[in-house]
Structures are given as structure tokens and as C-alpha cells.
């Protein structure tokens, strides 16, 4: 009896020490499981987390722009400037944040910063996310102010592009003021449809008389097969000194009440 009890106790004590030797198969299995989890995390990051992070960073940058450009105690303007041509800003340097895009249809508080250039350094960057085609015109300029952004990555600024309805306002804010465009139409083109950013869209070589804004992004979601293009036509201009347009005064620049 005593001997038995003693051997059981000894066995119990020894048990934790007698580990199984880790086999190659086990290590391999653990590595594969880890890889599976990391790939799952990557997909989650790609379609969701990265957007959340980038969207937040970009919205903050845009709000910061508005605050930097704001004139203290500016009151919202109920009417645009009359009979005045919009101020055309200087051509920005590559990667320079020079404007905000404010589209109420994309979200009540939607404001995103806009950088010069449409390379991956701008578009695949959580700080920028939206770029201006350098060969296209500037906001308010006769011709085409053409932009590119992601539909569903790096902040996905143009995620809701298909929801635009005729008559929706599209605002571009710069240090000079606010350019109001009115959404006109959408079209779907091939990747090579470079003419959509011509001064007169789809009419390369024709001299422009209108002021157009063009938004380009990918279509369908999570694919690069086609491009969806949204056009807007210039409507009016709100100089910085007159204060932000009433409709977006909560988003663009502080308003002291």
C-alpha cells in the first residue's frame, strides 16, 4: 500500500516534467494556424480596419486644413459671390495638400483632404487618399478639375460615388474659398478612358468653355476592372472672406455663434 501510494505520488510529481517532445509536425501545424490567422487579419485590415483608420486620419487632416484657412469669427454665407470669377489657386507642389472635398451625399460630416498627384504615394497613403490629376485644371478654372480616390481602401473617399443624385452639391474648399459644383452624371469607362479628365470630358482637343469637376474611382467594389466617373458642373463661388457656404458651415471651418 505504502509503496503503491509512494509510486503514484512520484508519478504525479514526475508527470509535468515528462513533456512530449515537440515534433516537427506540431511546429508546422502551429505555423500554418498562425499564418491562417494572420491572413484573416490582413483581409479584415484591408476591407475594414485600414479604411476606418485612414478615414479618421483624413477627416482630421481636412478639418485641420479648414481651421488653418479659417478667418476668425467668419459667419456662414447664405449667398455666393455675384458676378465674380472664382480665384484660381497656384499649381500645388507634388504631394501637397491644397484642398478639401466636401460632399454631403457621401456623409453628413464628409470632408477629405486632397493632394496633388495620383501616384500610389498619394492614393495608397492613409494621410492623403485622394489626389488631383496634375495635367487637369485647378478648382474653379475653365476646364476640368479631375480627382482620383479609392472606392474601398485607404479611406475609400469615393465609396458612395454611385449614390450621387442629379443636383447634389460637391464643394471644394481651398485657402481662397469654396467652389460649389453640382453633380451632373455618371459614366462607366475602361481603365484606358483617359479622355474623362480632358478639359472637355470625352472630347479631347476641344477648347473648354465650362468648369467641370470629375471624380474617378474603381468599379465594381474591391476590383480594378472598370472605372466609375462622376461629373459635376461649376455652380458658384464663395470667397474666403465671405465665410463658408451655409449648407456646409458645420463641416468647413469653425463658425462662432
Amino acid at each position, binding site marked *: 500500500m505504502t509503496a503503491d501510494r509512494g509510486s503514484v505520488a512520484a508519478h504525479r510529481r514526475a508527470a509535468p516534467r515528462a513533456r512530449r517532445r515537440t515534433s516537427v509536425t506540431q511546429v508546422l501545424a502551429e505555423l500554418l494556424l498562425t499564418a491562417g490567422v494572420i491572413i484573416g487579419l490582413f483581409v479584415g485590415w484591408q476591407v475594414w480596419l485600414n479604411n476606418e483608420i485612414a478615414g479618421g486620419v483624413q477627416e482630421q487632416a481636412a478639418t485641420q486644413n479648414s481651421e488653418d484657412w479659417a478667418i476668425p469669427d467668419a459667419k456662414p454665407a447664405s449667398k455666393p459671390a455675384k458676378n465674380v470669377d472664382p480665384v484660381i489657386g497656384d499649381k500645388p507642389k507634388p504631394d501637397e495638400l491644397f484642398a478639401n472635398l466636401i460632399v454631403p451625399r457621401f456623409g453628413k460630416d464628409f470632408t477629405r483632404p486632397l493632394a496633388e498627384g495620383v501616384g500610389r504615394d498619394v492614393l495608397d497613403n492613409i494621410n492623403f487618399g485622394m489626389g488631383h490629376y496634375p495635367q487637369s485644371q485647378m478648382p474653379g478654372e475653365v476646364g476640368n478639375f479631375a480627382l*482620383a480616390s479609392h*472606392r474601398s481602401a485607404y479611406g475609400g473617399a469615393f465609396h458612395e460615388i454611385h449614390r450621387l443624385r442629379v443636383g447634389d452639391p460637391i464643394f471644394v474648399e481651398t485657402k481662397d474659398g469654396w467652389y460649389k459644383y453640382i453633380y451632373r452624371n455618371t459614366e462607366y469607362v475602361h481603365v484606358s478612358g483617359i479622355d474623362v479628365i480632358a478639359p472637355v470630358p470625352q472630347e479631347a482637343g476641344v477648347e473648354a468653355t465650362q468648369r467641370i469637376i470629375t471624380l474617378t474611382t474603381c468599379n465594381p467594389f474591391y476590383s*480594378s476592372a472598370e472605372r466609375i466617373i462622376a461629373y459635376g458642373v461649376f455652380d458658384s463661388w464663395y470667397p474666403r472672406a465671405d465665410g463658408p457656404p451655409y449648407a456646409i458651415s458645420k463641416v468647413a471651418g469653425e463658425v462662432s455663434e
Partner: protein
Amino acid sequence: MYGALWRILPGPVWVRILLLLALATVVLVALVVWVFPYVDHLIAPQDVTVTE
């Protein structure tokens, strides 16, 4: 592999769990900040521009 990690960690069980959580956080942050953006650039670029 993970068994070895568990044995290497010092202290009682709750200390080991805290250490593991801290390690997991470090790994996650490293993945999100460096690894995932880098990998994303290597695979399937989601182009959004029109080009010639």
C-alpha cells in the same frame, strides 16, 4: 512552439497571460503599421485612376 513560449515566460499564470497579451498587442500593431501596408503594395494593386 507556443508550448515553448509558455514555458519561457516567467512568473505565475496571470503574469504569463498578461505578458502574452502584451506580446500579441505588439505583434498586431507591427502587422497593421508596417507589414500589412507593405504586403498590400506587393499584391493586387487597387488602381483607381484612368491611364493611357
